């Protein structure tokens, strides 16, 4: 059966060149970068090269990169690391209602530890305002964590302006840039951020690797104790295979970023045109402005999301909705809830389509045709196609 993968925001396949690099890495040196002998030095050199490339990709210094097992760990390190290091200055933290669970759940843990967390709302377009951050700021605010691009809607948050505003405040500023990393040139200086998390498997690199950028002036309470790798911020022998694949993915990203973005814009236009051609009733969740073209979160009035998703998969189309709960059932999206309120139908009829470098025009056409076919079966009255 023909299958079309449109869930690149969940994870991406390995880029062929990344795979090649990792195959070579498997045959290469296996020394421990911490060892003093020649085997260790060989690995240390590769690690240093990787760190330089990672740092350069976000306009940061060599020493500011902490490799982690991925963005979830990077976010946990940022959140618990800052909260526990700066608790003596205050116990107030600001974040948003639309963060990934890898930020929201650590924040909820901090609440249990006695921190006060403000979860800022967003407007209907899914964007948090600089004013809202300003109003929430207090003298005892020690930490602000706001994502760059939302993983469900593709809506970009005004990180530069928030960072600018926070310059005069003691609060440490963190951004989860997982979705943004593959789409725009990130620059920690223009962002005015102290901490930034990214992940490899969203940019065609391997799973199990990511990094946290840490401005030299920021202290973090250690979260993992051991051999004091990564300048003690992340103990544990380095995942060299992952780091080498990740580095290759970063290099490819720098080379191909503009081209990829143009590709996503073309696909996104084609997708909307297809929906219109089939007279499908839909609404984009979010707005066309400040929107990343590789993620389309679309509401289909009259459908029920579990039924729709299952039908799409049975037709070979892999997409997602909300966040999968453990028993496989779908919880309404907390992001759409923040945008439209608890009662809105969009919480129960929205699907996220996300495109990648391998997505073709034919894939989009195939997908739109299947959507039309399924909708005609489920709600014959709602489509004219």
């Amino acid at each position, binding site marked *: 059966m023909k299958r079309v993968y449109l869930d690149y925001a969940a994870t991406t396949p390995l880029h062929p060149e990344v795979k090649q690099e990792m195959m070579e890495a498997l045959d290469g040196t296996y020394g421990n970068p911490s060892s003093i002998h020649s085997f260790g030095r060989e690995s240390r050199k590769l690690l240093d090269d990787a760190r330089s490339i990672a740092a350069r990709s976000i306009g940061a210094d060599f020493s500011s990169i902490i490799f982690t097992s991925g963005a979830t760990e990077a976010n946990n390190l940022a959140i618990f690391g800052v909260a526990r290091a700066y608790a003596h200055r205050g116990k107030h933290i600001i974040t948003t209602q639309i963060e990934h669970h890898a930020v929201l759940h650590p924040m909820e843990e901090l609440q249990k530890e006695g921190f006060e967390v403000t979860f800022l709302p967003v407007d209907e377009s899914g964007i948090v305002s600089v004013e809202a951050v300003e109003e929430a700021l207090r003298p005892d605010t020690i930490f602000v964590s706001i994502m760059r691009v939302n993983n469900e809607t593709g809506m970009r948050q005004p990180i530069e302006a928030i960072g600018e505003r926070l310059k005069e405040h003691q609060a440490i500023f963190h951004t989860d840039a997982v979705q943004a990393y593959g789409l725009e040139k990130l620059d920690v200086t223009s962002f005015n951020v102290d901490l930034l998390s990214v992940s490899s498997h969203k940019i065609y690199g391997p799973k199990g690797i990511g990094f946290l950028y840490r401005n030299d002036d920021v202290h973090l309470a250690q979260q993992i104790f051991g051999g004091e790798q990564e300048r003690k911020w992340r103990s544990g022998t380095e995942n060299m295979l992952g780091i080498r694949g990740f580095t290759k993915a970063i290099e490819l990203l720098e080379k191909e970023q503009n081209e990829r973005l143009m590709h996503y814009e073309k696909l996104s236009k084609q997708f909307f045109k297809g929906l219109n051609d089939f007279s499908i009733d839909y609404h984009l969740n979010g707005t066309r402005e400040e929107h990343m073209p590789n993620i389309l979160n679309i509401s289909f009035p009259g459908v029920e999301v*579990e*039924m729709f998703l*299952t*039908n799409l998969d*049975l037709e070979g189309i892999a997409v997602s909705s909300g966040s999968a709960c*453990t*028993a496989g*059932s*779908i919880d309404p999206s907390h992001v759409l809830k923040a945008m439209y309120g608890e009662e809105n139908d969009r919480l129960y009829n929205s699907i996220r389509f996300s495109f990648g470098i391998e997505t073709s025009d034919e894939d989009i056409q195939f997908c739109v045709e299947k959507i039309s076919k399924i909708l005609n*079966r489920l709600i014959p009255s709602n489509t004219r196609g």
Partner: protein
Amino acid sequence: MKKPEDTRVVVGMSGGVDSSVTALLLKQQGYDVVGIFMKNWDDTDEFGVCTATEDYEDVARVANQLDIPYYSVNFEKQYWDKVFTYFLDEYKAGRTPNPDVMCNKEIKFKAFLDHAMGLGADYLATGHYARVNEIDGQAQMLRGVDSNKDQTYFLNQIPKEILPRLMFPLGELDKSEVREIAKKHDLATATKKDSTGICFIGERNFKEFLSEYLPAKPGEMQTLDGEVKGKHDGLMYYTIGQRQGLGIGGAGDPWFVIGKNLEENILYVGQSFDNEALYSDSLEAVHLNWLTDIDLSEPIECTAKFRYRQEDYAVRVIVDSDKDQANVIFKEPQRAITPGQAVVFYDGDRCLGGGTIDRAFKDGKQLTYLA
């Protein structure tokens, strides 16, 4: 007639051995099998553990073994509104509800059937021990061949119009054969324990569970003559004919629950299993449902079950179609007829339909305490 590979069968998979084997058998017959796990109840405990998660993992393991797609669907809201609310209301009214019958009627063979049809299914299959066979051009429900496991009792309220769309592959098998098939194919659920009791209560203490939802009103235990024999914990905790948990000691025959007085909050008890007060000779059934075309203008001579896993008894059923109720007259007096439970009618192996027991009578007089 569609070829099996073009025929989509949605299988309700619970993560148990029965539905696992159901999916296996249909896959072996070449059907386009889709497994769906239904989540009807949120049983997340104080440690955040949810048995539905484990069950879904078992569905995933079996589905992967069979190489079939699997999904889940959430009917928690429908289950709460249609099944659990009814369950509590019946207990509040002093009756003994049958949530499995209601679940089949409202969820599995209504909401879930609709879901399956929305997925382009030609058939819905479940692991019930029952059969649907075509007799004289009409789809009929028959007992499962394993008389000990037959589950037609729980299926009595489903509409007959949907029978042609149902498949019960286990209806032709004994439970022991089902286990054997699962073992032979090394299914992940082959040695999994069968679930017992009411699905949403699971292994938990029934009294404790009910007390979370309904206030318990303790009161007196009395004989029909008014002699006080002790205290009860709340009428809802007791079922007609029950022996356990009364705590009445002393010499003579053991004590049984023989009735309830809801107004005065009295639990009636009497001595001996065969206590005369427990016997009735007819009952009135409501919410009638027929699984076959049947002439209701004449009395129906058939057999009936008044509770699950009970033998059949000969009855005569006189239906009052206008009032949607029936008078069921027993050949022999019956013990512990329990309002709220189902009465299900059979003609040989054929399940004719059933209803809900509303009232019981002895010599034309209603047994008012049999609630």
